């Protein structure tokens, strides 16, 4: 039941993220709330759910946000969802700094995958200083949001219980 709730929230977030990418008028890149949600799920040891949320939410994000090809954000989110587990696989400890590192890594990996796929199928014009600046702007957005929202959330009860 809990996984179903996570999934529903994720789909809603994917839908909202796609809408936001269409309506975004503040300039610069749109912060990827779905990516943050997927990472948050992953850091709460809901890796399977996070990957599923990332996959389906990514499809919705691309479909609503009129992004082509559909599925690119799904691939990025699936990779991002596996990052926390991968981090533990290489023996990174579980703390708030780890969260920041994961945010930075996931943002950069998503941008790299996005640009690689776009460049592969629609060559030309996506590299340069603008790409770097957009990646930095998105990274800033994500770090700020992580500090404001996720970083201030209380420690999960099931984690506290195990301490």
């Amino acid at each position, binding site marked *: 039941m809990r996984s179903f709730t996570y999934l529903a929230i994720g789909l809603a977030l994917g839908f909202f993220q*796609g*809408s936001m990418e269409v*309506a975004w008028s503040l300039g610069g890149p749109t912060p990827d709330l779905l990516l943050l949600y997927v990472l948050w799920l992953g850091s709460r040891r809901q890796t399977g759910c996070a990957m*599923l949320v990332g996959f389906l939410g990514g499809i919705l994000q691309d479909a609503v946000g009129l992004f082509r090809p*559909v*599925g690119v954000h799904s691939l990025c989110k699936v990779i991002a969802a596996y990052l926390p587990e991968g981090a*533990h696989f290489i023996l990174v400890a579980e703390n708030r*700094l780890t969260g920041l590192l994961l945010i930075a890594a996931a943002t950069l990996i998503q941008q790299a995958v996005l640009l690689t796929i776009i460049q592969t*199928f629609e060559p030309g014009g996506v590299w340069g200083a603008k790409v770097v600046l957009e990646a930095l702007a998105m990274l800033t957005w994500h770090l700020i949001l992580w500090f404001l929202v996720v970083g201030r959330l209380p420690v999960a009860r099931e984690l506290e219980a195990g301490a």
Partner: protein
Amino acid sequence: MARRDDNLPEVIYRKHPPLLSSEPSPWVRQPARHLPLFLLLALLSCALIAIDLRTGFSWLQVAAGKVSGPIIHMVDLVLAPVARSVTVIRETLTARSENADLRNRVVELEARLHSSQTALEENIRLRQLLDLKAEVAPEAEAAEVLRYRNEAASRVMILRGGGSQGLSVGQPVITRSGQLLGRITGITDLVSTVRLITDPGSSIGVTLEKTQSQGILYSRDGNLFVRVDRAEEVPEEERVVTSHAGELFPKGLLIGFIEGEAGPIERDPFVAADLGLMKSYRVKTAYPIEDWERIREVLCLPAWGRELPAVAGTRP
């Protein structure tokens, strides 16, 4: 303190003390439990990308667009005011920056304009000087005035330029309008001293142009007077030029115009008694004496002894 119910290495707990959770992750014990799902979803994503590129999911985007319309509208309602505020702030900051740049630019252009105007005025002066130089004597030298000293005991002009520039003692000095100023009386390598015709010790032989009367030009209190024979009829506005009989200046250099008869106290102080045989007249210089301090450049005619044409003096 972490609960040690696993077989993790001790170094994990010592080097990375947990902040959010102190419980060791079960993922470490089962590192690849989600790998199949990960691979499956990644492959599915790649397949989706491939299908979209080959056949397209336009129906999905159309359907999603229909459903998402209200949400997009809602997001736009929230974001638009923020975007407008951001735009206003950005434009204000840009305008302030541009304003500062423009102010600096205006200051710079004003300085450049001032410099250009100065250069233009100097150019005009030098051009007039060159024209006069070509007209009077090609060998004449232009010189810049360093200082104008107008004192009761001594009225001189210091020029930038001396022996190293080819100047020498005795050269007559005139303005760009042809007004005679004086002659060089002292010289060094770099500067020259011009004794002006208004100097109290100055005395020059002159000719009244129309009547050809001969007279002596003298100075009193910085003003010029000419002393001629009492029998001479001297009309007003008669041109006064240097005399052909003088030894200090070539003939025909313009000095000024007769302005009127001088009063008793304006007589030549160096002539104790003229026995009533001479009469003095005031001379108005072609270039007003009170403006001589504003003269920036002068022309030094070749040393006296050569034949020079008369200078057609003009009023400034």
